[in-house]
C-alpha cells in the first residue's frame, strides 16, 4: 500500500478520543508543589515594596519569593541570538523597580496544593507608586520619551520608491490597522519541572514548539549545562505560536524545582493566560501604492508600527522582519520599501501567533490592490492576475532579506492556482450570484486575497530511524507536535520507503534526550524539514537492509526488492521473503559480525540518521475568498462561504493539510470579525475570559471549502514539500475586508480588523 499523498486517518487520534491524552495538567507528579505567580495589577508603576511574609505565614506554603530572593538571575534572553542593541528590552524574571504591564510577575509562591497557592498569592503585599500608562504606540513615551519608545527600526526595500511613485499614473494611500489578538490555544500554558537528584537531571514537561531551543535557553537562564536538562513534550492542547516561548514562569518553575527539591507544577488558568501569554498583531500601517492606468503595480511603500507591549519576547524582532520581508506577496514591483517601528507600550508583551507578520502584511497589500482596482474601475481579481509573478520567473529573488537570508521564492505558478480555484469553486458564477443578490437589496459581497507564505529553511532538523526485530520502525525527530499531525505525516513518508504499514511506524518527537538537536515546530517547518530528513534516513535504512539481505540470501542487492515489509529477489516475487525485522535481528551488533554482514561499528543495527539543511526556506502560496453578508442594522457580518486554495508542493496527507487550512481559516475569520484584546486608558486588559474575547463558535462559521494543489513542488527538497500550517489564516482578514466593502457598496470601507459589529456600525453611519 502506498501512503504518500493519501488522506489516511491520523495516528495521533486514538488516545485523544478516549480521554487518554497526556496534557500537562494530567501529568502532575504525586508530591508536586503548585506554583502561582503574583502579578501586577498596574500597567505602569514604581515598585516601593513587595512583602511575601503574609504568604509564608499560611500553612501549606513552602516558599514565596520576590525579586530580591532571586539573586543574580538574568532577564529572559533571545533565541534569535540577538545581543547588544536589544539588551534593554528583555523581561526580568520578576519585576524589580518598575512594573510595565498588568499581569507582569512580581512574586511567586509555592504551596502544597493549587488552592493554597492561590490564597497565598493574595497575601503578598505589593506597594507601588502609579505612573502614567502608555497604551497607544504612536504617542507612547515609555522609556522616557517618544524616541525611547522605539525598540528598533526594521527596514527592507529595493528600487527608487519615490521616483516610481512620482512618475506613476495613480497613487493610493491608506491607513490600515490590525488590532491586538492572541493565539488562544484551548489548553492554557503550563510547565512541570522536576529535579531528579539521583541522576542530577532537571526534567521539564510542558513547553512545546521548540524543545531543544527552549532547553538551551532555560539552561542559560538558570546556569546549568544543557545536558543536565531534559525537556519533553506530552500532548499539547494547541500552540499556534504562543506556547513554548520561554517566559518568567518557565524559569521560575525550574528554579523552584532545583531550590526546593520538589517537583513543581505551574498550570496557568484562562484569566492568567489572557494577560500573561504572548499577544500578537497590533499593527498600524501607513501604506502607499503606485500603479499605471492599466492596473500594473509599480511600487509599494509601507511604514508600520508594532504595538510590542512592555518587553520583547525571545523571538526578538522577528515579526517586524517577517512583515517587511513578505509584504510584497505574489506581485511584481519596480520598487518597494517597508519600514517597521517596534514600539513599547504598557501592555502584555507581544510574540508570535500563526501567520505572524503575514496576516498583517497580506491585509495591507490586498487592501492596496483593491483600492487600485477601485480607483481605476478595474476588476480586483483581474488586477491581481495581471501583476502575479509568472511561473517562468521562478526562482524569483524579491530584493529583500529575512535576517541574513535573501527572500527567493523557490517555485510557484500563481496564475494557475487562481485559474484552478476559479474553476473548482465556480467563482465567476458565485460572483454573479452575489451581484444579483445585491441588486435585489441584500448587503452581500465577495472578496479575494492572494498571498505567499514561508515555511522551513535553515538547519538543525534531523531524524534517526531504527527498526526492531518485529519490524516496527522507530523514527526519532527533533520536531514538535502541537496537534498538526506530525507523527502521521512522517510515518507516511517512512512507510513507503521501508514498505511497512504506517501504523507500524512510531514517531518520537519533542524530547531533548532522544536526539541531539531539533528546531521544533515553528514557522510551518516540521513537514518540510523533518519530512525531508525522514525520507533521507529511511532511504539509508532501506539500502542497509538490502545490503544485509543480499549477504544473507546470496543475491546481489540490486536484484532484491523490498515489499510489504519483506525482502525477496526481484525474479522470484512469489518466493517467501525475508522480513525486515529478521534483517534487523541479524544486524544487531552482536550478530552482524558473526554472520559476516556488511556493518559498521558506528551505526549499529538496522538504523540510520539524516540531517537536513536548506539555505533558503520554501514558499507555499494560496488565495482566500469569502462571501460575506452584512446586517446593516446591527453591523454584524456573517461569513456565508469561505474558500482556501493553496499549493503545498506535495501534500503528504491531503486530509491533514485540509485540516490545517480549515482550522487556520476559522482563526482568520475570528481575527477578521470578532477577536480583539482591548485595554482601558489606564492599561487594564478588558478581555480576561472567553466571554470578552470572542473566539468563533461553530454556528458562526461555514464549512471551509479547500483546494489543495501540488503544481509547484519545491526544488529545494527531494519530495518537493512545502509547509501548510499558516496558509489557512493568511488571507482571511484581507478577503473578508474586501467582501464587506462590496456588501455595503463602499470600496475601502474596511481599514481596521477586526470588523466588529460596533466598528462596522460606525463605518455604516459614516457612509449614510
Amino acid at each position: 500500500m502506498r501512503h504518500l499523498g493519501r488522506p489516511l486517518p491520523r495516528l495521533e487520534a486514538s488516545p485523544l478520543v478516549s480521554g487518554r491524552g497526556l496534557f500537562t495538567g494530567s501529568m502532575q507528579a504525586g508530591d508536586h508543589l503548585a506554583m502561582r505567580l503574583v502579578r501586577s495589577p498596574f500597567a505602569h508603576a514604581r515598585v516601593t515594596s513587595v512583602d511575601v511574609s503574609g504568604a509564608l505565614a499560611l500553612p501549606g506554603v513552602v516558599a514565596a519569593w520576590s525579586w530580591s530572593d532571586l539573586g543574580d538571575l538574568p532577564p529572559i534572553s533571545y533565541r534569535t541570538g540577538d545581543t547588544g542593541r536589544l539588551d534593554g528590552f528583555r523581561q526580568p524574571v520578576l519585576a524589580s523597580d518598575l512594573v510595565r504591564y498588568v499581569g507582569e510577575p512580581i512574586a511567586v509562591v509555592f504551596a502544597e496544593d493549587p488552592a493554597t497557592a492561590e490564597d497565598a498569592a493574595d497575601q503578598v503585599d505589593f506597594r507601588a507608586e502609579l505612573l502614567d500608562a502608555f497604551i497607544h504606540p504612536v504617542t507612547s513615551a515609555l522609556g522616557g520619551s517618544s524616541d525611547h519608545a522605539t525598540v528598533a527600526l526594521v527596514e527592507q526595500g529595493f528600487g527608487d520608491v519615490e521616483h516610481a511613485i512620482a512618475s506613476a499614473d495613480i497613487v493610493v494611500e491608506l491607513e490600515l490597522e490590525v488590532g491586538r489578538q492572541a493565539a488562544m490555544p484551548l489548553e492554557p500554558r503550563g510547565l512541570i519541572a522536576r529535579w531528579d537528584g539521583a541522576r542530577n537531571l532537571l526534567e521539564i514537561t510542558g513547553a512545546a514548539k521548540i524543545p531543544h531551543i527552549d532547553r538551551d535557553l532555560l539552561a542559560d537562564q538558570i546556569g546549568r549545562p544543557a545536558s543536565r536538562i531534559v525537556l519533553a513534550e506530552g500532548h499539547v492542547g494547541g500552540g499556534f505560536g504562543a506556547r513554548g516561548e520561554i517566559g518568567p514562569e518557565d524559569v521560575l518553575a525550574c528554579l523552584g524545582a532545583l531550590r526546593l527539591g520538589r517537583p513543581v507544577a505551574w498550570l496557568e488558568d484562562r484569566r492568567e493566560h489572557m494577560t500573561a501569554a504572548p499577544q500578537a498583531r497590533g499593527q498600524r500601517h501607513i501604506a502607499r501604492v503606485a500603479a499605471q492606468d492599466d492596473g500594473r503595480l509599480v511600487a509599494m511603500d509601507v511604514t508600520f508600527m508594532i504595538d510590542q507591549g512592555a518587553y520583547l519576547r525571545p523571538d526578538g524582532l522577528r515579526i517586524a522582519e517577517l512583515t517587511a520581508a513578505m509584504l510584497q506577496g505574489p506581485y511584481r514591483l519596480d520598487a518597494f520599501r517597508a519600514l517597521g517601528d517596534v514600539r513599547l507600550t504598557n501592555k502584555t508583551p507581544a510574540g508570535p501567533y500563526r501567520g505572524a507578520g503575514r496576516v498583517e502584511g497580506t491585509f495591507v497589500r490586498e487592501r492596496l490592490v483593491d483600492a487600485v482596482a477601485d480607483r481605476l474601475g478595474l476588476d480586483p481579481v483581474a488586477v491581481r492576475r495581471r501583476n502575479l509573478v509568472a511561473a517562468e520567473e521562478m526562482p524569483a529573488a524579491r530584493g529583500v532579506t529575512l535576517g541574513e537570508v535573501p527572500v527567493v521564492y523557490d517555485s510557484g505558478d500563481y496564475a494557475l492556482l487562481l485559474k484552478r480555484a476559479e474553476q473548482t469553486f465556480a467563482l465567476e458564477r458565485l460572483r454573479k450570484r452575489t451581484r444579483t443578490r445585491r441588486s435585489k437589496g441584500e448587503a452581500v459581497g465577495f472578496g479575494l486575497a492572494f498571498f505567499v507564505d514561508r515555511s522551513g529553511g535553515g538547519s538543525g532538523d534531523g531524524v534517526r530511524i531504527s527498526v526492531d526485530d518485529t519490524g516496527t520502525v522507530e523514527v526519532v525527530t527533533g520536531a514538535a507536535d502541537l496537534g498538526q499531525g506530525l507523527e502521521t505525516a512522517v510515518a507516511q513518508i517512512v512507510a513507503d520507503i521501508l514498505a511497512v504499514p504506517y501504523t507500524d511506524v512510531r514517531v518520537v518527537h519533542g524530547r531533548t534526550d532522544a536526539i541531539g538537536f531539533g528546531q521544533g515546530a515553528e514557522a510551518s517547518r516540521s513537514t518540510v524539514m523533518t519530512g525531508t530528513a525522514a525520507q533521507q534516513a529511511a532511504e539509508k535504512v532501506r539500502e542497509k537492509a538490502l545490503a544485509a539481505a543480499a549477504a544473507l540470501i546470496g543475491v546481489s542487492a540490486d536484484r532484491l526488492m523490498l515489499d510489504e515489509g519483506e525482502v525477496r529477489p526481484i525474479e522470484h516475487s512469489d518466493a517467501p521473503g525475508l522480513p525486515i525485522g529478521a534483517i534487523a535481528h541479524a544486524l544487531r551488533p552482536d550478530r552482524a559480525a558473526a554472520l559476516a554482514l556488511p556493518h559498521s561499528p558506528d551505526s549499529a543495527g538496522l538504523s540510520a540518521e539524516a540531517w537536513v539543511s536548506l539555505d533558503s526556506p520554501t514558499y507555499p502560496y494560496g488565495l482566500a475568498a469569502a462571501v460575506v453578508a452584512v446586517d446593516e442594522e446591527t453591523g454584524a457580518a456573517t461569513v456565508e462561504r469561505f474558500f482556501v486554495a493553496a499549493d503545498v508542493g506535495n501534500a503528504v496527507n491531503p486530509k491533514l493539510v485540509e485540516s490545517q487550512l480549515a482550522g487556520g481559516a476559522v482563526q482568520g475569520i475570528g481575527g477578521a470579525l470578532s477577536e480583539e484584546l482591548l485595554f482601558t486608558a489606564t492599561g487594564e486588559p478588558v478581555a480576561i475570559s472567553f466571554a470578552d474575547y470572542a473566539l468563533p463558535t461553530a454556528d458562526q462559521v461555514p464549512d471551509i471549502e479547500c483546494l489543495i494543489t501540488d503544481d509547484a513542488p519545491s526544488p529545494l527538497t527531494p519530495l518537493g514539500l512545502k509547509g501548510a500550517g499558516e496558509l489557512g489564516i493568511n488571507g482571511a482578514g484581507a478577503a473578508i475586508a474586501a467582501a464587506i466593502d462590496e456588501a455595503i457598496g463602499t470600496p475601502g470601507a474596511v481599514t481596521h480588523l477586526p470588523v466588529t459589529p460596533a466598528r462596522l456600525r460606525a463605518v455604516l453611519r459614516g457612509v449614510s
Partner: protein
Amino acid sequence: MSQIRPLSFRLNGVDTSVTVEPRRTVAEMLRSDLRLSGTTVGCEQGSCGSCTVIVDGEPVRACTLFAVQLEGRELRTIEGLARDGSIQALQEAFVEEDAVQCGFCTSGFLVLAAAALESDPFIEDEAIDALVSANLCRCTGYGPIRRAVRKAAKTTRRAT
C-alpha cells in the same frame, strides 16, 4: 481550609464514596482526587465546554458544578463512555472526519454529543449544528466536528 465532607454518587456505573472540600468543583475532583484526567479544563469559567460531563443524563460543565452537588446523582465521564463502548460510533467518526487535532476539546465534544444522541437518536442535522456550537475548538474550524457528529448519528440510527 474548609472542612471535608463525605460524598456518595455513581461514577461511570460504579457506586463511589469520597470526601471532598465543599469548594472543590467536579472537574477538580475528577482530575486531582480521582485521577480521571480525560475531562480537560480549558477555562474554569464555564465557557469553553471542554470539561463537559453527563450528570443524570444531561450534559453539564464540570468546572461550574461543585462536587458536593453530585450527592446521590449519576456522573458519567469520557473514561466511562470510552470503556463501555457506547460512543464507539462517535469515536470512529471523529477519527475518520479528522475532527481531532490537538484533542484538548475532544472529550468535551464527544461527551456533549453522546448525551444528545442518547436522549434523541433521531436528532436532526440542524440540531446537531446548534449543539456543536456550545463548545469551543481552536484547531479544527468545527466543520469536521459537525460532520463527525452527523455521521455518528446516522450510524447510531441505523443500528437502532
